[in-house]
């Protein structure tokens, strides 16, 4: 693992790779989490790899697994179908599955410079980690007695147990020994900006916005009014006050949701009402939180705004007015107005005002760094009004989400590091996208599996502050991970590639105007290099010509097509023979022998397979080795003048390669051979000869030509060996003049083998399965071969002819002498 965290290293951005398309979830995530990879890795059961993918950009992975607002989920393409992938809950699953003491290896500081960071909340911690991982020392100052900021103090335990926050923080510190944490060190008293600027090479202000805003109506400073953050801070600090029976929370954001659910859990409370000034469509709280609050019994009043708060006998009368919604304003939110004469009172014992937070710091104000209730910060480089002093997080840009704060932490760290390294004009920061190329889940049910939320536990009276949500069990997590579309992966089609798909999506988007269309068009007009892989022509560069209007032949009603094959009197059920397996385990070889017999084919090899009752075509290099038990002897040296025969009726044949072609065919003609094997691999007779790779296709047409020139076209059947993978490959060789094909590696794979450097490996293959699998493959290949023939209007595979073929490349045209599609003649 690189010691530089990827998120501050723009060079790790992979979004420009030809086959990598950053998926919408990743793009929606402010810190560019490689969601698709971690979800794919979860499906594979590779949990620690999944955590690597998560933590690479997210130091607060555990926290995010619980409470991230997950902008990725609405962006998920599956959201438009049956619901998004449960990206957040899956993240939690990884953390829970690995256990709270899971740690990453430490990265020691190796540089002298020092950075001071004020505030150990999400932004400060993120920046501290990035800077420490880059080798610098960090002094991290925290005003409170514990680190974590809003993650610790602002979010109630039933959503985010403090232990989870602590685990993340412990992970950061164990990974980054270069961070020195100073608790109870608020800016101002002992920690002075001037001093820090002297003692450190850069200062980053990440003090957060932890002061609640007031309601701004008469009476909002009364004894029965508290702001949401203060309320949450106190409860999170361990207080469990007895509250009045009725509590009203004003606001509709996530703090309001946390506050109302927290209030509900405190002693004395009977009813909690949330009053929000816009309607249910506009409420900013996440649907999930809203749903949870409702499920626990919180009541919601919409289109209501407070106008004043009056004390009355131990409680308050919250004077409210109804609101009416107008057109959307510049920020996209609908404006609202108070409806005259719609006043009403809400009686309650406590009002919690959750209407926003602000940053407060006298020390910073003294240095002229504040701009209202925020630190003046340039978003271009995160700098403030003082040189080498940077700012990030809620104090800099107003209160936002956890993941947004982490984004700012990364971004600030990037500019701080640039400053430390003396880079005056760093490339503008942008979230880099990276992929771990996790394989796509091969889950048969991926299309069907419905979204499933993690088990909702809700409010348990016996343990009101216990977890309100449980983790998935392993199986559910696996299933939920299978649901991912994997928008990040290349498609199976070289024509409709992932980039093509995305370009079509982009053209269809509501926001696509001429600017976007013009940009996409320019990209599409760019010329691309000719990417044809090097090497000889392959079967893939040959295609068949289907019968449409012309050549509507012979017997249009017959859907069946014959494939029986006669090789010099040797009758086979299909034009496909088997080779290889000589060094396969005995049991596999025996199973193959049985299948060869049962499927009516023959075996070609130096030795017969154990128990083989089907014809054996023996490969010999030395005529004296010829075995009378063989149905045919195939001499594999092209030059020998005498083809051996050990008994009457034994077929005589030889194997020719590109090197021995002319002599070999001449010899076969002269000796009146019964059959000839054309070996495109040049290696037949060696173990798994087909592993030689792409065969030399040209030898078949050359052999046919030579025979034709000798006026002996039908002199002997040709058996093709080399590179055959499917029935279509076979059909092409039949069309070019072969009578049958011979497979070894394909048969080995079919029997369950795997390709290893030494050959085809049968480790772990159950011999009883090998036979039926090979039989199934032969059946499939034969049906493919006859399907090709049928499409060409043939009722017998042996009626395929060169005229049924076209080539797709010049090299194939040259190799097999078949004209390219679209052309009339070769030159």
């Amino acid at each position, binding site marked *: 693992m690189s010691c530089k965290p990827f998120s501050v290293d723009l060079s790790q951005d992979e979004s420009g790779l030809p086959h990598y398309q950053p998926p919408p979830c990743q793009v929606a995530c402010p810190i560019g989490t490689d969601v698709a990879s971690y979800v794919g890795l979860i499906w594979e059961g590779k949990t620690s790899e999944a955590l690597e993918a998560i933590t690479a950009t997210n130091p607060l992975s555990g926290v995010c697994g619980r409470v991230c607002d997950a902008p990725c989920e609405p962006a998920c393409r599956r959201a438009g179908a049956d619901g998004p992938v449960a990206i957040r809950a899956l993240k939690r699953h990884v953390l829970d599955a690995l256990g709270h003491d899971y740690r990453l290896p430490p990265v020691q500081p190796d540089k002298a410079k020092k950075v001071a960071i004020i505030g150990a909340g999400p932004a400060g911690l993120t920046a501290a980690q990035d800077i420490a991982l880059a080798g610098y020392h960090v002094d991290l100052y925290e005003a409170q007695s514990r680190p974590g900021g809003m993650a610790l103090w602002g979010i109630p335990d039933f959503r985010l147990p403090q232990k989870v926050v602590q685990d993340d923080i412990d992970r950061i510190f164990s990974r980054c020994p270069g961070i020195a944490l100073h608790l109870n060190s608020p800016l101002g008293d002992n920690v002075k900006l001037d001093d820090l600027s002297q003692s450190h090479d850069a200062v980053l202000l990440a003090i957060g916005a932890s002061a609640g805003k007031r309601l701004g109506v008469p009476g909002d400073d009364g004894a029965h009014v508290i702001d949401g953050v203060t309320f949450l801070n106190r409860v999170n600090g361990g207080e469990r006050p007895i509250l009045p029976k009725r509590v009203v929370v004003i606001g509709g954001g996530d703090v309001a949701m946390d506050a109302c659910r927290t209030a509900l859990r405190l002693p004395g409370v009977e009813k909690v009402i949330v009053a929000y000034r816009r309607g249910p469509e506009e409420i900013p709280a996440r649907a999930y939180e809203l749903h949870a609050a409702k499920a626990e019994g919180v009541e919601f009043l919409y289109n209501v705004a407070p106008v004043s708060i009056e004390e009355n006998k131990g409680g308050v009368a919250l004077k409210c007015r109804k609101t009416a919604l107008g057109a959307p304003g510049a920020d996209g939110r609908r404006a609202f107005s108070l409806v005259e004469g719609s006043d009403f009172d809400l009686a309650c014992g406590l009002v919690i005002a959750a209407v926003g937070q602000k940053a407060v710091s006298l020390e910073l104000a003294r240095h002229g760094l504040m701009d209202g209730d925020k630190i003046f910060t340039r978003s271009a480089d995160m700098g403030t009004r003082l040189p080498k002093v940077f700012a990030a997080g809620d104090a800099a840009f107003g209160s936002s989400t956890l993941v947004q704060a982490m984004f700012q932490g990364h971004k600030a760290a990037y500019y701080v590091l640039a400053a430390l390294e003396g880079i005056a004009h760093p490339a503008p920061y942008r979230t880099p996208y990276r992929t771990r190329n996790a394989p796509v889940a091969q889950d048969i049910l991926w299309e069907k599996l419905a979204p499933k939320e993690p088990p909702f536990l809700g409010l348990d009276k016996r343990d009101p502050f216990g977890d309100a949500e449980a983790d998935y069990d392993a199986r559910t997590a696996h299933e939920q991970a299978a649901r991912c579309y994997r928008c990040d992966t290349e498609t199976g089609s070289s024509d409709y590639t992932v980039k093509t798909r995305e370009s079509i999506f982009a053209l269809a*988007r509501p926001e696509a105007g001429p600017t976007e269309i013009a940009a*996409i068009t320019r990209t599409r007009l760019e010329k691309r290099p000719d990417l044809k892989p090097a090497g000889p022509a392959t079967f893939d560069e040959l295609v068949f010509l*289907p019968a449409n209007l012309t050549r509507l032949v012979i017997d249009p009603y017959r859907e069946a097509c014959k494939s029986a094959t006669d090789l010099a009197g040797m009758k086979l059920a299909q034009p496909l023979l088997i080779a290889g397996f000589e060094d396969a385990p005995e049991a596999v070889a025996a199973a193959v022998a049985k299948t060869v017999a049962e499927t009516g084919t023959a075996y070609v090899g130096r030795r017969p397979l154990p128990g083989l009752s089907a014809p054996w075509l023996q490969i010999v290099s030395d005529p004296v080795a010829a075995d009378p038990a063989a149905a045919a002897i195939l001499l594999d040296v092209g030059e020998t003048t005498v083809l051996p025969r050990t008994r009457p009726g034994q077929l005589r044949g030889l194997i020719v390669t590109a090197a021995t072609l002319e002599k070999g065919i001449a010899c076969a003609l002269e000796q009146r051979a019964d059959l000839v094997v054309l070996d495109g691999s040049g290696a037949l007779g060696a173990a798994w000869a087909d592993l030689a790779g792409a065969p030399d296709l040209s030898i078949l047409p050359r052999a046919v030509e030579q025979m034709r020139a000798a006026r002996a076209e039908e002199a002997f059947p040709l058996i093709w060996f080399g590179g055959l993978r499917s029935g279509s490959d076979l059909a092409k060789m039949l069309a070019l003049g072969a009578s049958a094909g011979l497979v070894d590696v394909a048969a080995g794979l079919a029997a369950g083998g795997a390709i290893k450097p030494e050959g085809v490996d049968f480790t772990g293959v159950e011999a009883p399965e090998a036979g039926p699998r090979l039989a199934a493959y032969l059946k499939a290949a034969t049906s493919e071969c006859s399907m090709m023939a049928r499409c060409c209007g043939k009722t017998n595979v042996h009626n395929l002819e060169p005229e049924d073929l076209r080539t797709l490349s010049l090299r194939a045209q040259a190799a097999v002498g078949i004209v390219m599609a679209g052309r009339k003649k070769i030159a």
Partner: protein
Amino acid sequence: MVTLDLAQISVRDANTAMRAAAAQGEDIELVNPDARHHLGVGLVAPVKVTIRGSAGYFCAGLSHGARFEIDSNVGWGVGDSLYDGSVVVGGNASAIAGVALRGGEVVVKGNIGSRAGQVMKAGTLLCCGNASFLAGYMMYGGRIILLGDSGERVGEDMSGGAIYVGGRVQSLGADAKLAEITPEEYADIYAFLAKYGIAFEGGLQKIVNAGSKLRYGVNEPVSRPLSYTVAEEGTYWNAKVAEDIHAKALIGRYRIRGYGAAKAAPHFNDIALKIDPERIHAASDALATVNLKTTLGDRNGAKPLELSMPVLIAPMSYGALSKSTKIALARASKLAGVVENTGEGGMLPEQRAEAGQLIYQCLSGRLGWNIHDMLKADGLEIYISQGAKPGLGGQLMAKKVTKELAAVRGIPEGIDLRSPSRHPDIMGADDLVIKVEEFREATGYAKPISIKMGAGRVRDDIKIAYKDGFDFVQLDGMQGSTGAASTEVLENMGIPTLAAIQEALEGLREIDAGDDMPIVLMGGVKDGVDAVKALALGASAVAMGTAALIAGGCISCMQCHVGNCVVGIATQDPEHEERYKIDVQAKAIARYLEAVRWQIATLTKALGHSDFRQLSRADLVALTPEAAAITGLPYDPDYHPVEHVLTEVA
């Protein structure tokens, strides 16, 4: 009663006169029929038609409600696609009597030729004499009663319905078996015979589908394709090959998937437009200044299709696609002023209502094919094949044959559906021309008739299409997609789209056809850039299938054949279809088509033209030696546009 003398008037006039008379409720008598073809074709009225003599091909074809009586013999295809009504033939009937019956009754007093009742769906075909071979071939429903001998291979590949044989069952066809007859069936058959005054009280043998062929034991183990790049990594025995062989070794048959050829073959990316990309800007007035309008289909005097740009939606079937998807495509096509196509499997009423202009496709199985929808269509199309799977019939698993789908296709619900690889009545060029004429007669020569062809021997096929009088050709290269086909056929059968257009134009040139028969090119046309290349190569328009689906949310997982489409496009499962939001996707497709329009206009202008018809080969260069060899364009991979060939865009 009106008497028409075919010694005096042409068949076309006779059919027009019959329609007029029938509209008045008049019965009709045809004298001197002289075995002419297409008599009474397309007649939709409950009148009696008496033919005094013998009729030729397709007598009473595509009619509904009339009662035909033919004194003597009929040629092939009597009662073709009859919707309802009756046809009584006094003598013998030639081949494919009662082909594609959708209802009604065809009674032949004498013998019938081969393949009687092929792909019939409902109704009754009665033959009082003997049948020739393959009676009931690929029938889907209804009943055939043969009082004489069955002929050979009776009931071959039938999927539904029943065949009753009074004489000898000469041999059973593949996947057919004998079954018990209930007393109720006997009573029903005897009543039917009595209605036509036929005395028969003998026993019968019943033949039904054996169901041995269509079920697959094992599912494919893999649910999503590996990246295509695996095959290009340079190792011959790569992971994709191994995966493929392993899968076949498990299922014992060829594999199936959606989409078109996945391997790299010469394509639009291998040719370039002579445009400097940097000169394409957002502020283009090309939409206002470049003509994109065109028409298709008036080569023989029909009312042409009007296109706001040279783009069509490719034919895609309701069946392969969900109803919601067909509705969205229809709606988008109307918004964009282009033409939608039913594809195989019939016309949905909603689709007809939503589409501005709709082509109605006729396939070998004649699924959903009927006179009423023909009359509602704006164009008729004979499907010979498609680029993805030329030369093969189709297949739809029972699971997808829902009640609604079965109703639209006119077949029994829940049967395993296969369709033949060739039309019952198109064996070659000569039959085809008669078929085309039948459609023209049935619809009063008012509708363009096109042919859909996958690219094979295009140079020759196109000449036949020309001579058979098609109004235009929909030509599909091997890159063209499908809802399901054998992977081997997808990759290995047919020639690339670039080669297809090249051969088509050369073929037409060889017979001096001029540019009288337009070619709509398809198969991997992805946007306006590809469209302009196709037009410059000589296509009159392009059609898009997959690109329109992607614009509507398809994620290219290529698992269309499974039927569980994750986005609700290629599925008939209501739970999955629900995921597809018609309105959202219709708008997305329409926006995509508008972007295509922008591209075609802008690029046409950038090449210095004011009308897309001015695009020509001079606007193109080839980037690979292969593309140059196929198209004959100059090979110039380093081409840089020279300033003076450009006109300023925007």
